[in-house]
């Protein structure tokens, strides 16, 4: 698997982190398992301003995990580590979360699970026409503007 910014170790760690951020739901696998880390790697390549917060957060997670690698922690301990990292630097952590959401919710399969079959165009949506009869009470309110 070729990455553009992340090392293979960072990619693997990010993938595990993403599995905690957006866990499985019904038949849907968690975000990391779906490959969201590779998508985030592409974002980092295209938008250099994202690199510092994301890479800083990954390093902080490694440090907080202590002697045992993050991968060897149980689920409860992983979440505990992530909460501590988030509390220490919420701004950087939120960027990692945001990019994970970006990677996850732009997938057609995830959108389909939310009932979205197509992007907004070219089909758009058919919505009911406006019904003027709904305005009868407001029309009866009389002049509400001032010009004196």
């Amino acid at each position, binding site marked *: 698997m070729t990455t553009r910014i992340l090392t293979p170790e960072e990619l693997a760690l990010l993938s595990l982190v993403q599995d*905690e951020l957006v*866990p499985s739901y019904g038949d849907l696998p968690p975000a990391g398992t779906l490959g969201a880390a590779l998508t985030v790697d592409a974002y980092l390549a295209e938008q250099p301003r994202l690199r510092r917060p994301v890479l800083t957060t990954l390093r902080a997670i490694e440090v907080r995990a202590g002697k045992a690698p993050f991968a060897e922690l149980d689920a409860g301990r992983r979440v505990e580590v992530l909460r501590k990292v988030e509390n220490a630097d919420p701004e950087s952590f939120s960027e990692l979360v*945001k990019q994970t959401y970006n990677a996850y919710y732009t997938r057609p399969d995830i959108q389909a699970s939310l009932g979205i079959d197509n*992007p907004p165009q070219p089909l*758009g949506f058919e919505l009911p026409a406006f019904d003027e009869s709904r305005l009868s009470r407001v029309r009866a309110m009389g002049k*509400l*503007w001032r010009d004196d």
Partner: protein
Amino acid sequence: MAAPELDSDVLIVGSGASGAAAAWSLSRGGLRVTCLEQGRWVDPSEYAHSRPDYELARQTSFAKDPNVRGWAADYPINNSGTPIYPLMVNAVGGSTVHWSGHFPRMRPSDFRVRTLDGVADDWPFTYWDLEPYYDLNDSMVGVSGLAGDPANPPRSPRQTPPLAFDAGCEAYLRGLENLGWHWWPCDNALISEPFGENRSPCNCCGPCDIGCPIGAMSSAHVTYWPKALAQGVQLITHARVEQITVDHAGQATGALYYDDHGVRRSHTAGVVVMAANGVGTPRLLLNSTSARFPNGLANNSGVVGAYLMFHPVAFVSGVFEEVVNGQRGPIGGLMNCQEFYETDLARGFVRGFELQLSRSVGPLSVANGGILGHPVPWGSEHHEALRSRYAHTMTTSVMLEDLPEPENRVTLDPELTDAHGIPAPRVEYRAGENTQRMLEFSIARARELFEAAGAVEILVDPLVQESGWHLMGTCRMGDDPERSVINGWGQAHECSNLFVIDGSTFTTSAAVNPTSTIQAVALRCADWLGRNYRDVAA
């Protein structure tokens, strides 16, 4: 006509809402008009609406904040001194390229706040003076809506009917009817039926804020520009203006600009018209120093850049148990509630506000906080939380009148520059006490509305950082040269062949979106200039 050796009769700086309207109006009478635009035409293929990752455009290529978007045409803005970030688009069509298209008119009282409420200043003309130009503008751009709103003066029939009325509207209506408050379908610069050439009616796709790929949105590049170009207007894109030049007598002679190859060029004209928005116009005037105008062109009064007004915005979202599908349909164009628009001193403030009853966004934007800054939590609660908000949320914008204060201003940053070395603008702004009291009251009313509508959760962003679309007041109109930059025709008090026609002309801000008024003012000024060109031109 001006002297034939001049490059143009009229040089317009900026091709957005006001520049486009003025270019069309002035060229109708046979004047030779040139417009310098630092941006480019946005290619329809750039719109993201047909891609599954369309919502990413809000964070990247179609971000509202030029400091984030970073197009080559964007200039940096030092916004460290303001809680509200100035937003704009630097392209042909300006900030109408991606916007919500709300197109209300100001009310008669908005032009007379000194007389009626004893605050700020009256405009140098009335609503009734502007009304014919509102009508003309509407007929040019195409507006959806419905005449007959008792909260506003009677107006001409709208070009197309109101936009759709769906489940989210029904949710709002529950609250409004329970409370007995005013509401009316919005006027929108968005056509609901065929209108104009090469445009399709809105198909309710949703994300107007990242542009409109089908031409339903009445943006300046699809309304005025095709007509202006057909009338012979010369539009020069990738033209970054550095300064407005003047002669020894202090009359404007044209502009210096950098072309798309970075070559510094001069363009001469009998009249210069500034249409570069409420940040860009004062920036360029302040940068146009000379022996006659050491503090910037037309700024011996010190008023250029001062009296900056935004519309401070709070967002209040209601989450409903039922599906309201707020992501479907034009994001901004539903209903307005003007129950609290006019002054009632018992509320603890002067002037008023409106509630813009709007829709919502797709799943990615909901996850990242929706229209508000409230991201869906990560971890085990994530999916349920996302599903409780997505397709279940409607968002109201609380938009209030911002009073002009001289301390709120645009200046030139002493260090920051754009890619051509031209000083960048620095924006300093704080919400005044009246505004803060009004914000508190208005948020409470929006909460009340959602409670009455049956929302199960209410989320609030009390002062939205990325809400500085409406850039007003920085070259204000008035009769007093000590307190204003231009007169009621847009003509600078200190430089008779310099005109300003964009949002910076606003004497006061009203509590409605300004684009309809910006264009009406531009048409009124251009109409006068066209009739008086011989007397005005250098």
